[in-house]
């Protein structure tokens, strides 16, 4: 337990270094700003130093927690990705993303249950169920574009945000009315674990197979999305709309069609997130609270950046698991539930646009 003795001198060093840096730069920031920045730097240094010392004590255990955290962070990234896509292309902060994950999950699990109930073999039933839930997401995208967004074209961002809150309630209510409101287990992926590197570390590293599957699928999805955005005509048009609505309209790109496509893509991302989360926890109402976890991820990564959503998710996933285990020993458990928000708050203080966000320049 040499952790603290290692971290505290490191923290003091960071405070001094930070102070010197701020003083030498001669920035005309307020004193409060300076104190906050230095304090944050110190806390981060202490935390990282402490983690490093614990990692040296027991590398196998540390690695296990880190890998598990990163892989579960992938799921946060997936939900955040849906937000970013819509925010970039239409400037709408889509509160309904969590509800869309719920709709997708319920449509998938209930249609799958129905098909297997009829005695259809899994190999046929799974693709059919995925197709069906894809169609449900397309319907969602169509309805939202036509009856929520189009009448509000050129309205204020806050108005659009409010309308997506409304859409959230409608989606949640409708989905539970149509598909039921219980907890439905989904078994698409194996849920047991691998034990790796037994020769290297005592006891080896336990890696959850589901998490690996989740990471793999997320990686495939991100690559597919990147290719779609980069190399297809529609993808190019999507990027054009994200850059400049008016100019996109002037060259004849139909905005409403593009918005439909964006919401459809976000719906498919939601479907992918739902399959993995559903396997982990069962498809149930609490899945909408996922959307709340995506918020700190977005603040950390930046609202307009796809890489930001991914990195933000990984940071949150790994950070909260490491804090839970190592910090939990010192100050008590339950850190997992608030760590992401505190981290987001810290990022807001230092870099309000997020790690990868575009700097917001507002002319007054």
């Amino acid at each position, binding site marked *: 337990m040499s952790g603290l003795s290692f971290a505290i001198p490191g923290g003091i060093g960071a405070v001094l270094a930070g102070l010197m840096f701020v003083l030498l730069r001669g920035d005309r920031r307020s004193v409060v700003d300076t104190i906050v920045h230095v304090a944050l730097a110190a806390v981060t240094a202490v935390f990282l130093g402490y983690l490093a010392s614990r990692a040296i004590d027991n590398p196998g255990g540390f690695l296990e927690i880190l890998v598990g955290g990163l892989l579960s962070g992938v799921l946060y990234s997936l939900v955040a990705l849906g937000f970013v896509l819509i925010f970039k292309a239409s400037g709408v902060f889509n509160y309904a993303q969590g509800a869309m994950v719920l709709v997708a999950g319920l449509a998938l699990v209930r249609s799958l249950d129905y098909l297997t109930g009829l005695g259809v073999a899994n190999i046929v039933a799974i693709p059919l169920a995925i197709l069906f839930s894809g169609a449900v997401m397309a319907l969602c995208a169509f309805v939202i574009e036509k009856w929520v967004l189009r009448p509000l074209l050129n309205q204020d961002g806050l108005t659009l945000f409010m309308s997506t809150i409304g859409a959230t309630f409608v989606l949640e209510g409708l989905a539970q009315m149509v598909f039921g409101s219980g907890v439905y287990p989904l078994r698409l992926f194996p849920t047991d674990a691998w034990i790796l590197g037994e020769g290297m570390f005592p006891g080896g590293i336990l890696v959850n197979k589901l998490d690996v599957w989740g990471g793999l699928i997320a990686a495939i999805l991100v690559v597919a999305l990147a290719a779609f955005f980069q190399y297809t005509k529609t993808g190019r048009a999507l990027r054009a709309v994200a850059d400049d609505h008016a*100019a996109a309209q*002037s060259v004849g790109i139909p905005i409403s069609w593009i918005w439909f496509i964006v919401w459809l893509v976000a719906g498919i991302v939601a479907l992918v997130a739902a399959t993995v989360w559903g396997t982990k926890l069962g498809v149930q109402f609490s899945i909408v609270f996922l959307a709340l976890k995506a918020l700190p991820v977005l603040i950390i990564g930046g609202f307009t950046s796809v890489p930001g959503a991914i990195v933000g998710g990984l940071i949150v996933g790994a950070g909260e698991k490491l804090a839970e285990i190592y910090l939990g020993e010192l100050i008590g458990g339950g850190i997992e539930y608030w760590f992401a928000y505190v981290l987001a708050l810290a990022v807001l203080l230092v870099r309000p646009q997020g790690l990868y966000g575009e700097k917001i320049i507002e002319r007054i």
Partner: protein
Amino acid sequence: MTVATAGTPTKPNIVEVNNIEVIYDHVILVLKGVSLNVPQGGIVAILGANGAGKTTTLRSISNLLKAERGEVTKGSITFKGERIDSLTPNELVKRGCIQVMEGRHCFGHLTIEENLLTGAFTRRDGRAAIAASLERVYAYFPRLKERRTSQAGYTSGGEQQMCAIGRALMANPTMVLLDEPSMGLAPQIVEQIFEIVKDINAKDGVSFLLAEQNTNMALKYATYGYILESGRVVLDGEASALRDNADVKEFYLGTGGGGERRSFRDVKHYKRRKRWLA
């Protein structure tokens, strides 16, 4: 008032704007009865100061007005003889009428070549035809070919203007509405861009309707001009006639005259509403 009769038009008009009135946000009256014609294969200039209604006129033709909460409340607009008042910009681009917006509006995160390709979004005639158009645009704007892989946001103002015009050409238009191509550019670059516009007009027979503040340059390249002042056409005529008109010289070209008269409003009250058309 027409300074010199253009004679009976020999070519059919590709765009006819008849006495339109445009209101923004249901309250702000911007165009108070504007009529103008663009002959097939012509270059027509709309001239006037800030806020005269040049951009609004172009937007009401290309139907980008709705995005700005504007509305054509009176009059009619035809393109190739067809009423286009209720068409979307997408449908208009498909029919061959495209606007190049004021202030260039390139897609900053896309490369120059990607910018150009977005212009071909509405086309359904296959990759080979689009590739041929791309080569044609590069032939008009060799500078764009050099910069084809750089992000448009990092190119110069002149290159962005070329990119915006090239992007519009990628849609294979017969009519280009060009909004202030000279804005914020060095005189040399402006000249270069106007030369290319003239070239495109001569070689491909694309008609241009040009909104400009740079009266001198516009009248040098246009065949016909309309002068707008606070939402009304106060004068129109052949470009050469406008150039020689004493009032135009004084108000817009900055040559001759005493100085106390600044605009047509101080001279006399022109009424150019074609009441018999409305």
